[in-house]
């Protein structure tokens, strides 16, 4: 939130929280007729697509994961240069034979033959991971849902590999995992999005244009 405020501040728009620290209301200085609401990053894609908010700042990974056909429903106005994290595929370091997706695919085939079920990849980014693996032609895997502590699933034997967000890779290494050489699914960063619903009023469209002028977009 602070980095978002800094980003807007550097471009002449003041954003701040109003009221006490516990309230999720905000105020906007430097332009009239724009309201600020504070929502969790995970809710912003849905609210943008539904038209409940017109602009939103959230991770580019969350928009792609949570919205089917995301680019028909929201548009990227500006990547904001912070909040960077990579969605990657990681496997145990003990798999010295697996460095690439090609290896992962071959290992998955052998694993399924040996164990009688598809190799499990733990993630909460189902759509992004599935689309990536489909494009790359990886077979014989299944996704298992993991909403937290995903790095631990391999050690706990509830998954054989993971797909998760990492910024430094430190937690992965600490959990005995390594990133595949070509395992980068999406390089995410905080991004300013607009909704693409058609029911914006002329006034709202004009306001967006004015805001874009001030922001220099």
């Amino acid at each position, binding site marked *: 939130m602070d980095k978002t405020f800094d980003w807007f501040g550097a471009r002449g728009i003041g954003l701040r929280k109003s009221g006490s620290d516990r309230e999720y209301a905000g105020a906007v200085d430097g332009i009239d007729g724009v309201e600020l609401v504070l929502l969790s990053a995970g809710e912003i894609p849905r609210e943008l697509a539904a038209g409940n908010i017109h602009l939103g700042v959230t991770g580019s990974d969350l928009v792609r994961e949570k919205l*089917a056909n995301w680019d028909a429903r929201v548009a990227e106005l500006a990547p904001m240069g912070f909040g960077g994290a990579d969605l990657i595929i990681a496997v145990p370091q*003990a798999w*010295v034979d697996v460095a690439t997706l090609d290896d992962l695919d071959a290992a998955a085939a052998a694993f399924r033959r040996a164990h009688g079920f598809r190799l499990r990849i733990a993630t909460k980014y189902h759509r992004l991971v*599935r689309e990536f693996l489909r494009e790359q*032609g990886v077979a014989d895997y299944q996704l298992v849902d993991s909403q937290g502590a995903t790095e631990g699933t*391999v050690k706990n034997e509830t998954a054989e590999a993971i797909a998760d967000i990492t910024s430094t890779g430190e937690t992965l290494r600490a959990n005995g995992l390594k990133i595949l050489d070509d395992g980068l699914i999406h390089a995410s960063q905080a991004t300013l999005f607009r909704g693409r619903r058609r029911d914006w009023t002329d006034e709202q469209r004009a306001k967006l244009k004015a805001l874009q002028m001030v922001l220099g977009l």
Partner: protein
Amino acid sequence: MPTSPETLIEARRLRDLFAAKGAQVVKADVLQPADTLLDLYGEDIRARSYLTSDPLRGEMVLRPDFTVPVVQMHMQAHADPARYTYAGKVFRKQETDETRANEYVQVGYEVFDGQNPANADAEVFAAIAEGLSDLPVRAATGDIGVLMAAVRGLRTTDDRKAALLRHIWRPGRFRALMRRFGSGQVPPARAALLAADDPFAQAGADIGLRSRKEVAARIEALRADAATAPIAAEEIALIDAILGLRETAPNVLSALRDIAVDMPAIGTAVAGLDARLDAMNAHGVDVAALEFEGSYGRTSLEYYDGFVFGFYATDRPDHPPVATGGRYDALTAQLGQGRAVPAVGGVIRPDLALGLRAC
């Protein structure tokens, strides 16, 4: 429209048509146990399936098609040969195009007959064609079996053939494998691994279900693969030639016979295609005008492993096919735990058929 009263009437008409050909009318539960079905179909179908959980039965799925329940039914009945027809809704999530129905009716005709596969193929194709006879549709056909025979006939190791066969349905990965197997090159990371005195020096702790023994076994497989001679350029060219075929069926048959001179392994599959075309002719199909594509069926469902076909609106190539079908012998082997029953079937979407009739 996908489930309107008119659609249901058309579905009944088609089902009666198939029943009149001797097919037994069968039904399947809308809610199916998810584990068998999704383990078989994989993650792409899982993504498009409506999953729910039952407190006692575990994960259940709204049936994404009838094939698996009908095969299971057949396996229990032990009747052979057998013909089945059904009409009912199937459910598929639409991830990209919301104008496409997520709930629609399929009418199917499935033949389990190991005596004469060519005739069974022709029978199913002709029955589906008859159901669509008054509509502006064109048929596309192919034969995954020819491609599989060609891969099995390559002069290379069984491991390489198995890797290629696994990816028949993923053309990008198939092409990448062909390129690597034809190059004689070992990727740098792999070369380093194979050259290492102790490949496990950097391995760290063993975690997870995939054991060190499994990793070691793959390293041995990689070592054997690195020592394997590349697949000859001429053989790769023959596979490309098969994949590039796109002509009328008689012309394709002739081209395949030429290819079979250099690649005798496809001889049986080509003879099978010949027999199928004869049988289709006997069933009244205009074989001389029938389109055949060497790559057809490679991006559809993975379980078709022989004859494949689809019917498309003549002037709406962008629309989903009105009918699809094919042979799925391997699927019955997987579901039958070793007991395979040669099977071929097709489904019509009556809503799409009606849409064509209206315009």
